[in-house]
């Protein structure tokens, strides 16, 4: 909402200066977005000083001047004036400026081979005088401190731009703003000054509001004004509109706009000669169409509120008029409409048709239903004054009567919500100022809500009115109490934060990417998940919710590879989406590493990253979050974007249906399709919500400390076993031989090749044996040895390597 202080003062007398008014507006909830003059063409012209002046190399009568215009660097200007001398203070016009005298727009130009940036102006060129000999000479004393400043003072009035919240329909007119300011004690609201108009004759154009379901029009008031002479608006009216950046059109249109901006009362003027017989306000039928004043043809759905005549649609009520009945400069007779349209109906229609107009903006927020007559009166008075004509008696058709809203306000509510107390007398004064009718009763106020405040429905709205007018600075700051109702984080949230930092501590950069992605990349990682489309995506390459974090990670990996990074480690923890309903999502931590391990390091051998690098990061992380390493089970069933032979799925327990993590090398197809140029790419995913975390806290776990001081023994075994036999199973068989005595098993060699059957491999393991209650004898150890060998041989068909 834009207006000027001058306009505000049409309604309001105040002793406050502009700045105070601006502050007050913000303090009562009418946020001032800006308070500044309109940009003016003359803002281009700057006070400048000639720093040096030399003869033009190719022209005797021209000079090349270096000019200080108050910026970091001086500009070079070619000038023909004899008085362009060093130290002269003058007026400079930069490229882009329009010279007042001849309306010539300056551009950077070459004058006899020397580039000139702008121009030094004579008084004649600036229309200051007729002096065209030489450039303007400004007094050194007066202007030496103004180098770089505007030469012309900007006299256009400053415009206040308010950001009006959707609840404050009443402040979409200057009068409403003045009323609020007055209620807040910033001045006195002037009495309304209605013109006295002489009406004669009946309004004999019949207006009818159809009584039907969904009827969007509650009341339709009109005057018929005959014999007007439409013309250009007078200066005061044009200036008023121009002062807030609106373009004047013709007196009749300008008057309706002015009344809307001033009183928040939208009006519409029809050329009544173009109306066929009568006006009927009714619901539209599907498929009806008309051409609107924005020169677009609209095809309507059913039940939109339309103003029609015998020939069809004239306009969309409260939204936009039609070209067929538009007023023109030649218009002689007009029908002036002042109506009330229901906000819901307006909003529905304008949304379906995507129309936004000033009238629609006001009607959908709810204008004052009691302003119909006032609007007619003020506008008709102005029309008659400016364009002449005779005004008929008014005609007001009512379909639905407006009911005043009443609220019983318990005075104690104010303190209960705001924490501060206001004397009853002051409460009464504030509400009265805002237009409430106040009747004091015991502990309560009986209130009648002003018709222009559709937003005020209940007690709490009254609290807000009083609080905002009193000022929020009256609210006392109460120190927060440290009372805790439940722990800050639950187990799952703790796990989230732990995982995040655990992975980061392994050299990964955490990143945050959109929850949506490009369906083309997403397809590479979606598997058989449903594609979740966004109906109105921000762009076609962010058109689906991500089915995998890799959809985005891979994209940004590529960007970083293109920046010439080679060894990249990144991860993200966040949601992936399985469906389009709330809850169809899962938190995943996905990480990737590209390139080489120890690139260009003098002491370490370069090697490509491989599946076991990724396995290390995942397993270590899982250990750190407290999973039992013995129970973890791994198989090779992984999604299709993993390398089929070099990836694994991790299960928290061998009986679990769903894995808690995947790790491995990426499928070579992905590298190809995503066009990734890297030495190697390993990835992993951890599915946070699938991890079962016990109820035990660390204090429970730590207290179970047991250790053994008895002698430890180690034995090495090498088994020759089927090539495809998984070592995980071999370890389990050994460990099952005696879970108490066998403390750990390490694989220290896997060998295939010479001396070993082609279908076999040799696996060498180191087994640590320790009892928790005695020293083991040689016999004990030998027995265990034999058991291990026989168990492995019997269960796997392996042979101890001799």
């Amino acid at each position, binding site marked *: 909402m834009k207006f000027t202080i001058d306009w505000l003062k049409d309604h309001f007398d105040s002793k406050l200066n502009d700045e105070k008014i601006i502050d007050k507006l913000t303090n009562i909830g009418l*946020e001032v977005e800006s308070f500044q003059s309109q940009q003016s063409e003359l803002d281009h012209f700057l006070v400048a000083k000639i720093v040096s002046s030399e003869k033009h190399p190719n022209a005797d009568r021209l000079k090349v001047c270096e000019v200080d215009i108050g910026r970091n660097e001086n500009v070079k200007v070619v000038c023909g004036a004899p008085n362009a001398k060093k130290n002269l203070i003058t007026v400079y016009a930069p490229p882009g400026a329009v010279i007042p005298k001849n309306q010539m727009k300056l551009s950077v130009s070459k004058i006899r081979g020397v580039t000139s940036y702008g121009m030094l102006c004579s008084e004649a060129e600036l229309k200051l005088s007729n002096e065209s000999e030489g450039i303007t000479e400004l007094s050194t004393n007066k202007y030496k401190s103004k180098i770089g400043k505007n030469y012309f003072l900007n006299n256009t009035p400053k415009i206040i731009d308010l950001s009006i919240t*959707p609840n404050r329909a009443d402040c979409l007119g200057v009068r409403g703003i003045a009323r609020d300011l007055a209620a807040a004690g910033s001045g006195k609201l002037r009495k309304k000054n209605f013109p006295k108009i002489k009406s004669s004759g009946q309004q004999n154009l019949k207006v009818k509001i159809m009584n039907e379901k969904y009827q969007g029009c509650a009341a339709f008031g009109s005057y018929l004004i005959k014999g007007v002479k439409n013309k250009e608006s007078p200066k005061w009216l044009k200036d008023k509109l121009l002062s807030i950046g609106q373009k004047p059109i013709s007196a009749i249109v300008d008057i309706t706009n002015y009344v809307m901006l001033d009183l928040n009362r939208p009006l519409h003027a029809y050329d009544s000669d173009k109306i066929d017989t009568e006006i009927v306000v009714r619901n539209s039928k599907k498929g009806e169409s008309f051409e609107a004043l924005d020169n677009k043809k609209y095809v309507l759905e059913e039940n939109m509120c339309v103003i029609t005549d015998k020939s069809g649609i004239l306009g969309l009520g409260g939204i936009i008029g039609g070209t067929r009945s538009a007023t023109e400069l030649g218009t002689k007779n007009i029908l002036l409409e002042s109506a009330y349209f229901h906000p819901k109906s307006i909003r529905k229609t304008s949304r379906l048709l995507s129309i936004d107009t000033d009238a629609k903006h006001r009607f959908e927020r709810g204008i004052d239903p009691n302003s119909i007559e006032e609007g007619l009166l003020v506008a008709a008075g102005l029309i008659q004054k400016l364009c002449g004509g005779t005004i008929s008696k008014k005609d007001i058709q009512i379909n639905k009567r407006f009911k005043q809203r009443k609220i019983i306000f318990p005075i104690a509510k104010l303190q209960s919500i705001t924490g501060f107390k206001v004397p009853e007398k002051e409460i009464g004064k504030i509400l009265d100022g805002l237009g409430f009718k106040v009747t004091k009763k015991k502990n309560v106020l009986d209130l009648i809500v002003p018709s222009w405040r559709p937003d005020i429905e*209940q007690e709490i709205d009254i*609290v807000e009115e009083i609080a905002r007018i009193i000022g929020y600075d009256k609210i006392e700051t109460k120190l*927060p109490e440290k009372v805790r109702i439940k722990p800050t984080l639950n187990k799952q*949230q703790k796990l989230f934060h732990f995982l*995040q930092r655990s992975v980061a501590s392994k050299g990964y950069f955490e990143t945050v990417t959109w929850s949506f992605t490009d369906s083309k990349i997403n397809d590479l990682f979606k598997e058989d998940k449903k594609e979740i489309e966004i109906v109105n995506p921000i762009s076609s390459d962010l058109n689906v919710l991500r089915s995998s974090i890799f959809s985005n990670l891979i994209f940004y990996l590529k960007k970083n590879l293109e920046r010439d990074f080679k060894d990249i480690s990144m991860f993200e923890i966040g949601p992936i989406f399985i469906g*389009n309903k*709330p809850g169809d999502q899962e938190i995943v931590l996905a990480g990737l590493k590209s390139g080489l391990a120890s690139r260009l390091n003098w002491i370490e051998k370069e090697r490509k990253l491989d599946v076991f690098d990724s396995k290390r990061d995942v397993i270590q992380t899982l250990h750190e979050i407290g999973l039992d390493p013995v129970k973890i089970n791994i198989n090779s069933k992984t999604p299709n974007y993993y390398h089929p032979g070099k990836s694994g799925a991790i299960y928290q327990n061998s009986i679990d249906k769903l894995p808690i993590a995947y790790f491995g090398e990426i499928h070579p197809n992905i590298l190809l399709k995503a066009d990734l140029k890297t030495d190697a790419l390993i990835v992993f995913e951890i599915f946070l919500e699938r991890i079962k975390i016990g109820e035990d806290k660390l204090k429970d776990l730590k207290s179970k400390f047991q250790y053994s001081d008895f002698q430890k023994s180690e034995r090495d075994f090498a088994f020759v076993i089927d090539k495809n036999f998984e070592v995980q199973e071999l370890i389990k068989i050994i460990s099952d031989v005696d879970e108490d005595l066998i403390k750990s098993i390490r694989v220290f060699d896997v060998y295939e090749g010479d001396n070993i059957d082609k279908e076999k491999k040799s696996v060498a393991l180191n087994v640590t044996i320790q009892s928790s209650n005695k020293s083991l004898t040689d016999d004990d150890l030998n027995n265990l040895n034999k058991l291990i060998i026989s168990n492995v041989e019997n269960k796997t068909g392996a042979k101890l390597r001799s």
Partner: protein
Amino acid sequence: MSDIIKIKEEYLNKLKEISDLKEINQLKSELFGKSGKISNEFKKIGSINPEERKTISSQLNDAKNELHNLIEKKINDLEINEINLKLKNERVDVTLPERTFNRGKIHPVSQVIDEISSIFSEIGFSVEEGPDVENEYNNFTALNTPENHPARDMHDTFYLDKNKKFLLRTHTSPVQVRTMLNGKPPFKIIAPGRTYRSDSDQTHAPMFHQVEGLHVDKNINMGHLKGCLNYFIREFFEVDKIKMRFRPSHFPFTEPSAEVDIGYELKDGKIIIGEGNKWLEILGCGMVHPNVLKNVKVNPSKYQGYAFGIGIDRLAMLKYGINDLRAFFESDYRWLSHFGFDPLDVPSSYRGLSR
């Protein structure tokens, strides 16, 4: 001369000649081994008559100690010599680079969420979360923003179905709805998370982060709201003094509603939070609207409280001097490295929010 003296003299002489660790160990075992000369003498003691036994055994002990000490000393000296000799050849250039290590980083958004959680944890708030995909009811209707309410225009919503029933939440406020529907008052929660609006330029990203706050109990009023936010802002920006301004505003789900500005000044093009005479809008808040309480089955004549919503990314930008919001989500390795935080920098009250 007794055997003992003889042995002693003989070996003392031998020891003088020897400077090789192996030979000394050889000597040692000749004397003290299982059938070494001194060991044998000890074995004989039992058969010596009692009169002489005392003298001889003391003689033997003396000899044993003297030889033993000498041998140990000699061994020790030789070992040290040997190490010293070895050390002369064991010099490396320690200025050569170490073995590879990789530093990870935590994203500023995550770090700031942790900072926020830590601050609110101190005053008894717990963390709640909700889904990114919401239904239209939780995101709007329950929050007193019925269909056809102009306030819906303030949010450019991403929809997931043609009927506009399912959407990406435009704010974290639906977590309020979920929390209150699923529990009983009092409520004292914050809800950080991703939020979405179809808006994209230098200061708007289609995805951003908010933290919602909600405190509902029997006597919570705007004074508590002011106190809570004042505490939060001061702690978050780690400044002693903070200038704050509560300005009336409008949100459908709170009433009275306020926007909060904080004071700042510009120094060398950088925003300094705290004092100064410029105002920066940083959050919206208010008292939970009775209609919202009714919608979530909380009795508004018994309970009341406040709610607030803060842009997390914006807080991060202000605190850590980040200019471009979009850069948060572009995963530029250089940016992540510069603005990221060490994973060991876990914000907490005892170590301070940040280093």
